[in-house]
């Protein structure tokens, strides 16, 4: 396999965040290695074939490199997960309590109570798992970090989805007013941002889990 073909294969297999540095280093390494084999008398194509074969299968190299680089990324993801959970107080509490139009009903409808409690319960789970993953990320317990980060991400995603349902239901139960123009987009933007953070944290955790295989 030529160096260009090998690098293209490696690029496809590497996580996007790991590509820049790893590809540069591997390219220089393969060029050195091919130069060594050329100086030993091999033709260009044979030298490159030998260099790429000596380096190891691209998929395996990508898995291991991606997993190592994911550890650093997961530390960042854990911190962001904690911040994301803290930030989630806006769609869960600040927006409904302060921005939404006052509830027209004397007693809150049961479905809103259920949705709010479920959203808050998953938010609390997310907070616990995010803090745990941030603590595990300071240790060498990659599996524990990956699992707790995954659970934090999933809990935050569930809390986000339930919050969307909550906002949507609230919207249908209250008369349209000027506040809705601010509250609905704000709440949805918070939910979307938290969901995106959750998905990213989950993908980080998956790559990190690869390091323990």
């Amino acid at each position, binding site marked *: 396999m030529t160096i260009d073909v090998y690098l293209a294969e490696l690029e496809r297999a590497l996580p996007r965040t790991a590509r820049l*540095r*790893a590809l*540069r*280093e*591997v390219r*220089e*390494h393969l*060029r*050195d*290695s091919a130069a*060594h084999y050329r100086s030993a008398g091999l033709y260009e194509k044979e030298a490159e074939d030998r260099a790429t074969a*000596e*380096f*190891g299968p691209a998929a*395996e*190299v990508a898995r*291991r*490199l991606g*997993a*190592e*680089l994911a*550890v*650093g990324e997961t530390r960042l993801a854990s911190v962001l997960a904690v911040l994301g959970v803290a930030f989630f107080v806006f769609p869960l509490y600040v927006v409904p309590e302060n921005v939404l139009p006052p509830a027209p009903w004397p007693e809150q409808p049961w479905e809103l109570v259920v949705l709010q409690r479920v959203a808050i319960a998953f938010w609390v789970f997310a907070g616990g798992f995010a803090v745990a993953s941030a603590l595990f990320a300071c240790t060498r317990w990659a599996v524990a970090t990956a699992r707790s980060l995954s659970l934090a991400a999933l809990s935050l995603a569930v809390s986000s989805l339930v919050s969307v349902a909550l906002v949507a239901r609230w919207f249908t139960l209250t008369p349209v007013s000027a506040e809705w123009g601010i509250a609905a987009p704000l709440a949805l933007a918070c939910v979307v941002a938290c969901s995106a953070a959750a998905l990213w944290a989950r993908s980080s955790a998956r790559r990190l889990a690869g390091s323990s295989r």
Partner: protein
Amino acid sequence: MTSDRLRGHVDLLLLSVLEDEQAHGYRLAEAIRTRSDGTFDLPEGTVYPSLYRLERDGLVASRWERVDGRRRRVYRLTRRGTKELARHRADWRDFARAMEAVVA
């Protein structure tokens, strides 16, 4: 020697080479092969995950440098890496001595 048997010792090998010189990845793989008279012929791609891990743990540091007209990521041992190498080395000597006593 198969890479499976070397697993777990790659960090010690890398730290040992870096004790003597700052080096980029290819030079490190080459030094390990040369110093072991070709016995430790690792798949060269295994060097980088180990280097990234050592760097994350603060045992080595790296930066881009121009070497022979090309930009390379050059690694060096940190103070913490020097201490860790001494500890690894002492463990290894104890292990080798005990193995020798039992097996030989």
